[in-house]
C-alpha cells in the first residue's frame, strides 16, 4: 500500500507561501497529462518539472518523485495516477499522471477527462509506440491539445527529424510544432513549460453553477480513509460541505480538500479548473471510483459528467491459500485490498483439488500479477493461482445463456449449443523488419488481420482481431521476444464471437483435477493436452507408485504421460554415529512435503500449479 500521506504543517513546505483561501482564476490554469511509452522518460521529465518550478527543492528530490508504490517503482510503471500542482511564470500547472499499462485503459481515459491538453513524450531514438498512439487518439477524440515532444535528444542515436515526421504522418500535427528536449540534462524543458502555457487552453467552467467535480483516482489511506484526486468542472468544492456522489449514490461530508504541491496542503475550496484532493470519510474506494461525479447535496447538478463506466474484469483465476488454514486470512486480505482497488472482484469458490478459495476477476494479466504479488507481500500469504481464464458465454440446449469464467463450470458437452468467447482488437506497432514474425504470432493465436498501415517506410501498424484467451497467456512475452523488444501492443475490446471450443481436463492418477481444466479451441486442444501433460510429468516428482497424467476431452483421452514410481530414496550411510545429520535430513524432507498439495494420493508441488499453467505455447 502507499505510504500514509505525510501530513505537513501547512506553512512549512509550501513554496507559494502560507495557507490559501479562495480558488485560483481559471484563466491562469493549465491542466495536462504526459502520455509516454514505458521508459521514454515520463518520470524523468516529471522530476525536471518539479525541480524547475521549485515545487520540490533539489535537496529533497529523490529520483522519480511521483512513482510512490513499491511495486510501481520495481516494475517501472505507474499503476495509480498521481497529480501535482506547480507554478510557472504566472501560471498554475496541474500535472496529472496517467497509468502506464494497457490493463488500466479506463483509468487513462478518466485522467484525460481532467485535462485540456497532453504532452506527447516520445523517445527520439525509438519513435511512437502502440499504446501511446492509442492514448493520443483518445486525447484527440476528447478535443485535447497535443504538445508533441521528442525526448532524449542528448543520445547519439536520437533522430528527432525522422520521428517528428512520423508524428506528423500518424497524428497530423505539423512537424515544426514538435519540441525537442532532454529530460535528463534539462535542455528544452523550460521551452516546453512555456509551450504548455501558450498552447494548452485554460479550463472553462462556471464557478456559480452547481458543483460538478470529477474523481479520476482514489486510494485508501489507513489514517484518512479514501483520498480521491478530483478536478472541479463547475461550481466550487468546499471543505465542510455535504456532497453527493452521483453514481455510487452516497452522501458524504467533505472533511478536507487540498492541493498537492506536491506536499499535501489543505485549502478551503477548489474552483473550476482546479485539481486537488478530497477526503470525505469514505472507507471503501468502490464508493468513490474513477469517473465518479461529486456534486453538492444541497444544490445538486442535474446530470453527472459523461463517460462513467464500471470497468469489467477481463481475466479470472482462482486464488487458493497453500495452507488451507489461511482461507480466512485470504478473505480478509482481499477485502482490504479492494478498499484500494475497486476493479478487483472476488467470490468464494471450492475446488476439488485445492479446497476453499476465491474466484477473482482482474482488468488484465498485469493487474492479476500485481494483485497476487500484493496479497503475498503485504499480507504474508502464500497462494496458488489457477490458470487465467476469460469469461465465456455459453448458450445451452434449452436456449439459456450463461457466463462462465471457470472452465470447470462448463455444462456437459451434450447440453451446450454454442460457446462464444471475448475478442480483442489488437494493434501492434513494429519495425517493418518484424512484420512477418508478428503476423506469424497473430495467426498462430487465431487472429485475423483487419488492417496494416505504414507509419513510415520502417514502421508498420498491424491490426488484428484476436481472441482474448489467446492474448492472456504469453502473447505479450512472445511479441517482445519475436521482435527483440521492438514491437509494442495496444488492445481494445471487440465483443464476443462463437467458436469451436472444448474443455480439456487433466487427470492425475485417474482423477480429474479441476484446477488444471482449460477451455481451448478444438484445433489447439490436442497440442495443449500434450504440452501440459509433458510439463506436469516434469514437475511432479516420482511418487511411491506410477502416476498416469492424462488429458481428456469429455471422456476421451487425448494425451498421456506417466511419472514412473520412485525406486530409491534412502540415506545410505550414517557416518561415524552422526545420527543428528540423518534426523535433520528427514526433517527437511518432511518440510518439503508441506510445500506439496495432495491431490488424491498424488503429491503435487505448489510450483507445478504455477509453472504448468504458465505453459509456453
Amino acid at each position, binding site marked *: 500500500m502507499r505510504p500514509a500521506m505525510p501530513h505537513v504543517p501547512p506553512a512549512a513546505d509550501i513554496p507559494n507561501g502560507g495557507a490559501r483561501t479562495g480558488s485560483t482564476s481559471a484563466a491562469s490554469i493549465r491542466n495536462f497529462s504526459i502520455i509516454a511509452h514505458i521508459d521514454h522518460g515520463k518520470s524523468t521529465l516529471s522530476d525536471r518539472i518539479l525541480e524547475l518550478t521549485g515545487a520540490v527543492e533539489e535537496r529533497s528530490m529523490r529520483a522519480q518523485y511521483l512513482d510512490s508504490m513499491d511495486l510501481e517503482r520495481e516494475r517501472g510503471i505507474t499503476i495509480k495516477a498521481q497529480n501535482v500542482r506547480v507554478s510557472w511564470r504566472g501560471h498554475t500547472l496541474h500535472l496529472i499522471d496517467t497509468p502506464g499499462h494497457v490493463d488500466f485503459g479506463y483509468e487513462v481515459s478518466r485522467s484525460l477527462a481532467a485535462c485540456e491538453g497532453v504532452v506527447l513524450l516520445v523517445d527520439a531514438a525509438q519513435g511512437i509506440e502502440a499504446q501511446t498512439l492509442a492514448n493520443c487518439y483518445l486525447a484527440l477524440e476528447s478535443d485535447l491539445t497535443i504538445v508533441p515532444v521528442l525526448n532524449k535528444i542528448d543520445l547519439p542515436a536520437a533522430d528527432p527529424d525522422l520521428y517528428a515526421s512520423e508524428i506528423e504522418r500518424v497524428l497530423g500535427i505539423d512537424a515544426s510544432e514538435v519540441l525537442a528536449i532532454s529530460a535528463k540534462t534539462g535542455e528544452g524543458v523550460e521551452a516546453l513549460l512555456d509551450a504548455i502555457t501558450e498552447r494548452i487552453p485554460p479550463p472553462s467552467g462556471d464557478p456559480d453553477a452547481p458543483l460538478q467535480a470529477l474523481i479520476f483516482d482514489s486510494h485508501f489511506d489507513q489514517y484518512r480513509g479514501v483520498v480521491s484526486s478530483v478536478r472541479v468542472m463547475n461550481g466550487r468544492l468546499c471543505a465542510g460541505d455535504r456532497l453527493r456522489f452521483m453514481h455510487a449514490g452516497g452522501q458524504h461530508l467533505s472533511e478536507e480538500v487540498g492541493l498537492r504541491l506536491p506536499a499535501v496542503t489543505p485549502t478551503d475550496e477548489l474552483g473550476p479548473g482546479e485539481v486537488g484532493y478530497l477526503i470525505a470519510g469514505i472507507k471503501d474506494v468502490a464508493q468513490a471510483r474513477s469517473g465518479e461525479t461529486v456534486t453538492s447535496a444541497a444544490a445538486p447538478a442535474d446530470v453527472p459528467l459523461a463517460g462513467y463506466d464500471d470497468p469489467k474484469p477481463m481475466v479470472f483465476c482462482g486464488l487458493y491459500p497453500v495452507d488451507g488454514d489461511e482461507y480466512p486470512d485470504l478473505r480478509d486480505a482481499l477485502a482490504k485490498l479492494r478498499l484500494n482497488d475497486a476493479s478487483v472482484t472476488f467470490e468464494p469458490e471450492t475446488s476439488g483439488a485445492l479446497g476453499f478459495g476465491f474466484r477473482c476477476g482482474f482488468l488484465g494479466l498485469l493487474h492479476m500479477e500485481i494483485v497476487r504479488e500484493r496479497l503475498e507481500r503485504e499480507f504474508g500469504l502464500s497462494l496458488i493461482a489457477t490458470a487465467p481464464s476469460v469469461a465465456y458465454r455459453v448458450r445451452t440446449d434449452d436456449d439459456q445463456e450463461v457466463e462462465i469464467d471457470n472452465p470447470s463450470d462448463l455444462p456437459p458437452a451434450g447440453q451446450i449449443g454454442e460457446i462464444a468467447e471475448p475478442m480483442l482488437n489488437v494493434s501492434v506497432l513494429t519495425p517493418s523488419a518484424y512484420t512477418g514474425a508478428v503476423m506469424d504470432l497473430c495467426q498462430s493465436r487465431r487472429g485475423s488481420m483487419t488492417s496494416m498501415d505504414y507509419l513510415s517506410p520502417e514502421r508498420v501498424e498491424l491490426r488484428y482481431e484476436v481472441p482474448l484467451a489467446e492474448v492472456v497467456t504469453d502473447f505479450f512475452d512472445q511479441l517482445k521476444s519475436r521482435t527483440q523488444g521492438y514491437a509494442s501492443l495496444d488492445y481494445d475490446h471487440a465483443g464476443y464471437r462463437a467458436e469451436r471450443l472444448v474443455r480439456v481436463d487433466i487427470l492425475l492418477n485417474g482423477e480429474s483435477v479441476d484446477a488444471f481444466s482449460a477451455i481451448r479451441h478444438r484445433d489447439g486442444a490436442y497440442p495443449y493436452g500434450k504440452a501440459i501433460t509433458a510439463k506436469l510429468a516434469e514437475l511432479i516428482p516420482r511418487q511411491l507408485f506410477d502416476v498416469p497424467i492424462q488429458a481428456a476431452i469429455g471422456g476421451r483421452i487425448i494425451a498421456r504421460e506417466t511419472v514412473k514410481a520412485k525406486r530409491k530414496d534412502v540415506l545410505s550411510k550414517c557416518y561415524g554415529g552422526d545420527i*543428528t545429520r540423518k534426523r535433520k535430513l528427514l526433517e527437511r524432507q518432511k518440510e518439503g512435503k508441506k510445500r506439496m498439495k495432495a491431490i488424491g494420493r498424488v503429491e503435487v508441488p505448489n510450483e507445478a500449479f504455477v509453472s504448468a499453467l504458465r505453459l509456453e505455447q
Partner: protein
Amino acid sequence: MTDTGSASPSFGIYCHIPFCTHRCDYCAFATWTDREHLIDDYMASCRRQARELAAELPAVTSVFFGGGTPNLVAPELLGEVLAELPLAGGAEITVECNPDLVTAEQMQSYEALGVNRISLGVQSMNSGVLDALGRRHDPEMVAASVDAVRRAGIGQLNLDLIYGSRAESVSDWEHTLARAIEFEPDHLSVYGLTPEAGTALGDDPSRHPDDDDMADKYLLTDELLGRAGYEAYEISNWARPGARCRHNRLYWRQGSYAGVGCAAHSHRDGRRYWSVRTPERFIAAISNGTSPVAGSEELGPDERRLEALQLALRTSDGVPAGALPHDVGHLLEPAGEGRLKLTARGRLLANEVAVRLGLPSAR
C-alpha cells in the same frame, strides 16, 4: 563378539583418524591429505583424551578406529589409545583399512594389540570403476590384504563396497559382488554412492548416480548376498549369522558411545555431541585443557521416541505395526512380535517411509 541383543549394557568408543594419502572423488569426510606432520601430536592428544575419559567409562564393549585412513598411522599409536580404555572381555575392536597400505606386518601388529576385526575399503573389484571413484588401489591389492588379515589370525573381516558409479555397469557390479563373496568375509557394508556438495563427484552432475541404476544394483546385492548366506540386518549392512557389527548396532539402537579425536560423535545419557572438526583445533583443545566439544543437542521425549523408530526402521528389528500408515504397506513385511520391517524394495525407499512414521495408522 557376536550380537547378544541388548542383554548386557554395551558401550562403544569411536576413534577418528583424520589422515589420508589422497582424497577420493566422492569423499566429504573430515580427513586431510597434507597433515601427516600432525600425526604424532594428534595421536598423543587422542591418548590423553582416552585417559581422561576412562575414569568415568563403563566397560567398553566395542572400539572402532575409523577415518580417514587408520592404517596410515603406526599400529602402536592405535595401541596406546586402546591401552587407556577399560575394555570388557571379548570387546569388538575394529580398524578400518585402505587396501593400498595393508601389509602382513601391519596385520600382525594389530593382532598383537587385540584388534579382532578389520574393515577393508574395497569399494569395487573393477579397476575402471575404482579409477572413476578416484580410489588409488587396484583389485589385486584387495586379494593381498584379505590374505594378510587371514594369515595374521584376525577373526573377523568386513568389506566396504560402493555401488552406483556412472562408470559401473550392472555386470561390473555383479562381478564386484561375486569377487567379494569369494573372499568369504563375515560382514559386508554396501553403500550407495552419494554425491556430496564440494566433492569432485558432487560438483559434476554428469557423474551423479542414476536412481534406477542404483535400485537395480541394490536389489541385485540383496539377492546375491542373501543367496550366499548373508542377512540384511540394516539398510547397508549384511552379515553372516552371528557376525553383525556390535559397534554399528549401538548407532541403530540409540546406544551409548563416546568419540575420541576430532569430528567424532558421542551419545551419552540422551545427549548427542560432537567434537571440533579439524585435528589442529582438537590438539589445541586437549593441550589447553579446554573442551573439544563443538556442538550438542538434547532431544525431547517425543523426538527421541520418533528417532528410535526412524533408526529401528533401518534395521531388521523393524517397528511396531501401528507406527506406519497403510499406503506404504507394500514396502513392509512381518518382523515378528507385531513388528514390520522394510522389504528390499522398501529399504530403497526408507526415507519416504521414515517421514511417515508417527502418523496415525489409519488413513
